[in-house]
C-alpha cells in the first residue's frame, strides 16, 4: 500500500522578480497576498487575479494563478462578471489609487452590491507609471507632476466611501503592516465585498516630491482623518449566491416563446390598409392599435404598427401607424393613410403631413375641435360627448378605431371584440369597442 502525501502549495509566486522600483511598497503587499493564499491553501487554477492599469497592473504576471489584466479602472467590473458567472472562484482585484478615480462608480457599486470579490488597492497617492501625476488620493497640498504648486483637491477616503455604502469588510493599512497577510485572509474569507486600502511608498515620485516616509505615514493618515485598521465588518448576503437564491423559484420555468393567435374570422381586404391614430402619450393609442392588429390576426390578416412618441412617457404626442394586409408585407412608413384618426391637440400637431397627402378616397375621423381641418379626405366628426356614457381619455383611441372599423369593415368587429375581451383591461376595452361601433349610428 502506498501513501499519498499531499503537500500544500508553498507559493503562488512565479520565479520572476517583481519589476517595481527599489523601496516601492507593491512587492511587499504582493508577498503578503501570496502568504495569505498559501494559508488558505487555494488551488491556483480556481483563483483569478484581476488587475488593470498602472504599476499595480503589472502584478498579476508574477503569480501562478489565473489572471485577467484589463483596462484602467475596470478591474472590478471584470471581477464582478467572473464571480457572477462562477461563484465558486476566488476573485481578487489588485488595483491602484488611479483606478479608484477612473473606476469610482464601479468601486461604489461593488460595495453596494456586495459581490464576493476582494479588492486590494495599492494606494501610493499618485500615478507612478505615467510620471507621478496626482490621483484621487493625493493629499491636499501634495506636490506631484500635475500639482507642482500643491494639490487643491480633497483626497478620496476610499474606506469611508465603500464602508458607508454596504461593503462587508473594509480595512486601511500600509505595506508595512506585520499582520497584513492575516488581514487578506480575513478579507478573502468574508462573504461579500471586501476592500483593503493599503498605503505604500512611491519611491520614484511621491516620496521624492513630498518628503513622505514610512515614519510619517500612519501619523499622516490620522491627521487627514483617515484612521487605519479594520473599519467595517458586517454580515451580508454575497450577491452571486443571493442572486441564485432569489431566482430559485423561477429557475427551470419556461421562457416566454411564440404564441400564435387563433384565427376564427375571415377578413375582407384585397390590398393593404393603413390606419393612423394621432393622439396624446398616456392615452393608450399604442394599446388600442395593438388590439386592432390582434383583431386582424384573428381574421387571418397580417399587421404591423410603428409607434412614434417623444422620450417623455405620459406627455406629448403619440402617433401609431397601423398596417392591416392580406399578404405579408415589408415594414414601411405610412405616407398616405386610408384612415386617419386625429383625437387630441398633441395628435393634431403631428397631423399635417398625413392630412396633406390624403385624397378623397380616404377617411379622417376627428373630434369637433378639428371639424374644420384642411384635407382632401372625407372628414367624419365624432363627438365623444354625444356618447351615452362618458368616454375616458384612455379609451378615445380604441373608440375611434372601432368607429373606423365599423365604417370600413376590413374584418368582422367580433374579431376585435375577441381581442379586446381577452387581454388586460378587458371590460374597459370592450366598452370602448361597443361605444365606437355605435357612436356613428
Amino acid at each position, binding site marked *: 500500500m502506498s501513501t499519498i502525501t499531499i503537500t500544500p502549495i508553498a507559493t503562488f509566486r512565479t520565479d520572476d522578480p517583481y519589476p517595481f522600483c527599489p523601496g516601492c511598497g507593491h512587492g511587499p503587499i504582493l508577498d503578503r497576498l501570496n502568504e495569505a493564499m498559501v494559508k488558505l491553501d487555494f488551488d491556483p487554477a480556481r*483563483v483569478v487575479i484581476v488587475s488593470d492599469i498602472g504599476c499595480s497592473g503589472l502584478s498579476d*504576471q508574477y503569480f501562478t494563478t489565473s489572471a485577467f489584466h484589463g483596462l484602467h479602472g475596470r478591474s472590478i467590473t471584470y471581477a464582478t462578471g467572473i464571480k457572477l458567472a462562477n461563484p465558486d472562484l476566488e476573485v481578487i482585484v489588485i488595483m491602484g489609487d488611479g483606478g479608484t478615480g477612473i473606476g469610482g*462608480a*464601479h468601486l461604489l457599486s461593488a460595495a453596494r452590491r456586495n459581490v464576493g470579490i476582494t479588492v486590494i488597492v495599492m494606494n501610493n497617492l499618485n500615478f507612478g507609471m505615467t510620471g507621478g501625476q496626482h490621483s484621487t488620493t493625493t493629499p491636499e497640498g501634495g506636490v506631484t507632476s500635475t500639482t507642482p504648486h500643491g494639490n487643491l483637491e480633497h483626497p478620496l477616503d476610499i474606506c469611508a466611501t465603500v464602508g458607508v455604502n454596504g461593503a462587508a469588510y473594509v480595512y486601511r493599512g500600509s505595506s508595512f503592516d506585520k499582520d497584513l497577510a492575516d488581514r487578506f485572509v480575513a478579507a478573502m474569507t468574508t462573504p461579500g465585498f471586501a476592500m483593503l486600502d493599503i498605503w505604500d511608498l512611491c519611491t520614484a515620485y511621491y516620496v521624492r516630491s513630498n518628503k513622505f516616509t514610512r515614519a510619517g505615514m500612519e501619523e499622516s493618515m490620522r491627521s487627514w482623518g483617515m484612521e487605519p485598521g479594520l473599519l467595517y465588518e458586517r454580515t451580508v448576503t454575497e450577491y452571486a449566491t443571493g442572486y441564485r437564491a432569489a431566482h430559485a423559484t423561477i429557475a427551470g420555468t419556461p421562457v416566454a*416563446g411564440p404564441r400564435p393567435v387563433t384565427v376564427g374570422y375571415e377578413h375582407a381586404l384585397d390590398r393593404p390598409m393603413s390606419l393612423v391614430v394621432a393622439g396624446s402619450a398616456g392615452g393608450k393609442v399604442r394599446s388600442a392599435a395593438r388590439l386592432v392588429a390582434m383583431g386582424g390576426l384573428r381574421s387571418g390578416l397580417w399587421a404591423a404598427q410603428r409607434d412614434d412618441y417623444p422620450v417623455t412617457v405620459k406627455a406629448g404626442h403619440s402617433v401609431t401607424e397601423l398596417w392591416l394586409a392580406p399578404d405579408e408585407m*415589408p415594414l414601411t412608413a405610412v405616407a398616405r393613410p386610408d384612415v386617419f384618426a386625429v383625437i387630441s391637440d398633441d395628435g393634431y400637431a403631428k397631423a399635417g403631413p398625413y392630412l396633406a397627402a390624403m385624397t378623397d378616397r380616404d377617411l379622417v375621423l376627428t373630434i369637433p375641435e378639428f371639424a374644420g381641418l384642411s384635407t382632401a379626405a372625407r372628414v367624419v366628426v365624432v363627438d365623444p360627448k354625444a356618447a351615452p356614457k362618458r368616454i375616458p381619455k384612455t379609451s378615445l383611441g380604441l373608440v375611434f378605431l372601432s368607429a373606423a372599423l365599423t365604417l370600413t369593415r376590413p374584418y368582422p368587429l367580433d374579431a376585435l371584440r375577441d381581442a379586446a375581451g381577452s387581454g388586460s383591461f378587458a371590460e374597459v376595452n370592450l366598452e370602448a369597442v361597443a361605444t365606437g361601433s355605435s357612436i356613428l349610428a
Partner: protein
Amino acid sequence: MMTTTGAPRREYVDGATAIVRAAIDAGCTFFAGYPITPASGILMAMMRELPKVGGVAMQGEDEIASMGMCLGAAMAGAKAMTATSGPGISLYSENIGLAIMGEVPLVIVDVQRLGPATGGATTVAQGDVQFVRWGTAGGYPVIVLAPSSVPESYGLTAKAFELAERFRCPVFLLTDKEIAMTLSAVDVDEYPSVGAVDRVEKDSGLPYAWEPPDGVEPMRRYGDGDAFRLTGSTHDEGAYITKNAAKVGALNEHLIAKIEAHRDEIEMVDADLESAANTLVLSYGVTAGAARAAVAGLRADGAPVSSLVVQSLWPIPETALDAALSGIERVVVPELNMGLYRREIERVAGDRTVVGVNRIDGTMITADEIALAVR
C-alpha cells in the same frame, strides 16, 4: 419557411423580443446592460427571462461596467450579450478593444437611434453603421450583422452567437428603433430553428495561438483545468506582455486574418436579382422594408430591377456584391444617414453610378422615394 396549408399561425411581436428569445435559444447565460431607449426592452426582458434558464442578468452601474461584466463572465464560461444604443456604444468603445485583443466571444446589440450625442432617443436612424466597425482604437475587424425584420432579428442574433464563438470576437447585431420596437405579425413557422451554440474549449495549455494566422484556438475557462491568463496588452501565446516584434506582429496579423480569411463563412445577403436588371437597390436594416416594397412596385410596373439586402455588413460581403453587381449600371443605396455604407459600395462598384437616398430627419425613407431614384 412558412407553411401554406391550414390556418395561419401568426403572433404579434417586436424585434427586441425576437433578439431575447434567440439569445436564450442560442445558449446565452449572461447579460449585462444599462437602460437606454430604444434598447431597454432587451434589458428588461433579459432580467425577466434569463434567470429561468439558470443565467444571470445584470443592470450595470453604467455601460462600461456592463461590458466589463460581460467580458469577465464570458471568460468564466458564459455566453454573454449586452444591448445598448449609439450613446452606449460610445462608452463600450474601450472594452470592444479588449474583447478583440483578449479574443473574447461576445454579442453586442446596437439598437440605433438618431445621433449625434443624445440625438433622438425615440427616433430611428442608421448612423452607427461605420461607428460599430471602427468603434475602438487600432482599426481591427469586427463582425456586424443587420436584421431587417423580426424573423431576421431572431435568426441573426443566433448567428451572432455562432460567429462570436467561431471567431472568438465581438459580434454586433446592428438594429434600430423601428426593427426592435415595431410590433408586427410573424408566422411562427418562419423562425429558423436555433440550437444552443457550442463553445470549443480546452482545459489546459496556452490560451492563444497565432499559427496558422487565421486559426482560432479553443477557449479556456476560469476554474476549468489549470491556470491561464488574459491581458489587454500586446502579448505572447501565454498572455504575457511582450514587445517582441515577431510576437507582436503575429498577434495583430492573427486578429485580422482570423476574420478576413473566412469572409465566406460570414457573408449573408438576401439577393433578389433579375438578370435583365441594370439597376440594383442595395439596402440593409430598417430601410430594406421600403427597398423591397419599391422593387416590388417597379416590377409590377414592368421595370426589371434587382434587390440586395445586406445582412452581414462587416466584413463587406464582397463575393455577394460582385455577383449582384454583374450586369448592373446603377446602384441605389437608401440609408437613414448621409451615405455611410454607400461609400463602401462605391469602393467595389467600379465605374457604376452609385446614388443614395438619404434621410437624417428621423422619418423613414418611403418606397416612392426609392422608386424615384431608380427611374
